[in-house]
């Protein structure tokens, strides 16, 4: 994990501040930093999104390709995640330095999306046992400013919302061989229903309290964190503890309640922003990377 070095006095200042519900930048324990979300930034993908959460910058691209369904789930498509930690973020990621963090993030995403109800995989099936849509979700870490998991999950949800999969028809030949026909209209596509896609909320334990959306400095003061993935209805789909410290069962319960509450507000805010962007349509001024 990317980390900063702090002096003992600085850490003490942060811990006491969290105790009094006033963090270094004036936020409360349950406040997120101001987030910027933009979709459709990469033109050669089926869907893309960029999320900036303070100093954390994440770019996600989704590509829909045709593949064969998995043997145990013949009438469903599936998602493949890959996380690339760019050397732009910090010099530690140069060469193969970012591989460990990348695999950890990808494995967490697999776990979060392993629940059956997150994405309707049956809609990704074209021909049972023969053809299905595989969604390759590629995450690129451009800048690390703390709270990577949350930002990545927000970006993945926004990118899936933006994904447009072309409509295909299966035609039966006289000999029985199947042909796949792509529709001529480029705007004729199917969209995914992302209502049940979960978002990750990271709760870091600092002192006796826990905070949401920790910066790099706050992460250096926290010994243990709890990652929970929450859907928009407040249901928990997975939970993971990270860090070398220990957590009391009572604090885990409190953190779960906070996470559910914060997760619901996060989904509401994200959906509002995505709907606003959708309503602007083509009149929206694209900012992209050079804005």
């Amino acid at each position, binding site marked *: 994990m990317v980390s900063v070095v702090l002096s003992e006095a600085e850490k003490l200042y942060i811990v006491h501040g969290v105790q009094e519900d006033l963090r270094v930048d004036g936020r409360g324990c349950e406040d997120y930093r101001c987030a910027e*979300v933009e979709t459709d930034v990469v033109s050669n993908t089926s869907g893309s999104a960029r999320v900036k959460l303070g100093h954390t910058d994440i770019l996600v691209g989704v590509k829909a390709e045709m593949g064969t369904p998995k043997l145990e789930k013949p009438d469903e498509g599936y998602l493949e995640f890959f996380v690339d930690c760019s050397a732009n973020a910090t010099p530690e990621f140069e060469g193969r330095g970012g591989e460990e963090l990348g695999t950890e993030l990808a494995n967490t995403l697999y776990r979060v999306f392993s629940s059956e109800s997150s994405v309707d995989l049956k809609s990704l099936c074209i021909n049972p046992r023969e053809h299905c849509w595989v969604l390759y979700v590629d995450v690129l870490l451009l800048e690390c400013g703390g709270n990577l998991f949350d930002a990545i999950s927000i970006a993945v949800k926004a990118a899936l919302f933006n994904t447009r999969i072309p409509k295909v028809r299966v035609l039966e030949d006289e000999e029985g061989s199947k042909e796949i026909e792509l529709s001529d209209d480029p705007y004729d596509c199917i969209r995914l229903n992302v209502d049940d896609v979960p978002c990750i909320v990271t709760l870091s334990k600092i002192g006796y309290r826990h905070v949401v959306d920790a910066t790099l400095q706050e992460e250096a003061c926290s010994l243990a964190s709890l990652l929970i993935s929450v859907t928009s209805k407040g249901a928990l789909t997975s939970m993971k503890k990270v860090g070398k410290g220990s957590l009391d069962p009572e604090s885990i319960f409190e953190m779960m309640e906070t996470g559910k509450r914060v997760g619901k507000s996060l989904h509401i805010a994200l959906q509002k922003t995505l709907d606003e962007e959708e309503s602007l349509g083509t009149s929206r001024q694209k900012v992209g990377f050079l804005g």
Partner: protein
Amino acid sequence: MAAITMRLPVARRAVGPSAPRGGEKHLVAPGDTITTDTGYMRGHGTYVDEEKLIASVAGAVERVNKLVCVKALKARYNGEVGDIVVGRITEVQQKRWKVETNSRLDSVLLLSSVNLPGGELRRRSAEDELAMRDYLQEGDLISAEVQSVFSDGAVSLHTRSLKYGKLAQGVLVQVSPSLVKRQKTHFHDLPCGASVILGNNGFIWIYPTPEQKDEEAGGFTTNLEPVPLSDREVISRLRNCIVALVNQKLMLFDTSILYCYEASLPHQIKDILKPEVEEEIVLETRQKLLDLEG
């Protein structure tokens, strides 16, 4: 209650330049031709190619008689004797500490350049060498003055005064060194209730004003008592104001920070970093600074 703000990004608008003082600045990008006149001597940030003087960094052209140089807008800290810096200890070596000061090479703090506890004046012995880690460890923050600059550009620091030394509880903000204005003093006790050290290397340290000045403490003892909530609010507000000024590329000095603090009082501390609030506050600060000059 959770407060989550999410928004669509807005393209940055160029803010109109403030009243030009002493003519327009000649801004160049790497590769731009500065002049084709061969009579000039080339300084830092330039090179000669086919009888043309070309800039190698992005910045403003400065001309002193026949010498032309380009002062980069964003560069690492270049140490000069007498500068005040705030640095973080990265290594403890045999007779010195290596300090990170946002420059091209790590700065050096020699054991002979620090004051011994109790203010003794004697030759440093082997016991002092072994006790180095008890005084400054990896990760500690110090305020120091630049004693000399080595030939390769590395900076040698000293803390031979009671106002320098190890820093206690507070908040560090890292900004670009070119945004810190050179002034007579860089230690300010702001009237709003906190103190600030504006390091020339771009490290800004905000801390609660100490009650009484300890004579023999001189930066050795760290005060680990919890800071009261009122002081914390002032420090957080100052930190957000400094970040807002840096985002809008305003020079940092005590007056600008103070005006920005006053302009931010009507808003909540966590709202200062919202783009529209930030623009409003910095515009007001800029206006007040122009009124002060005019």
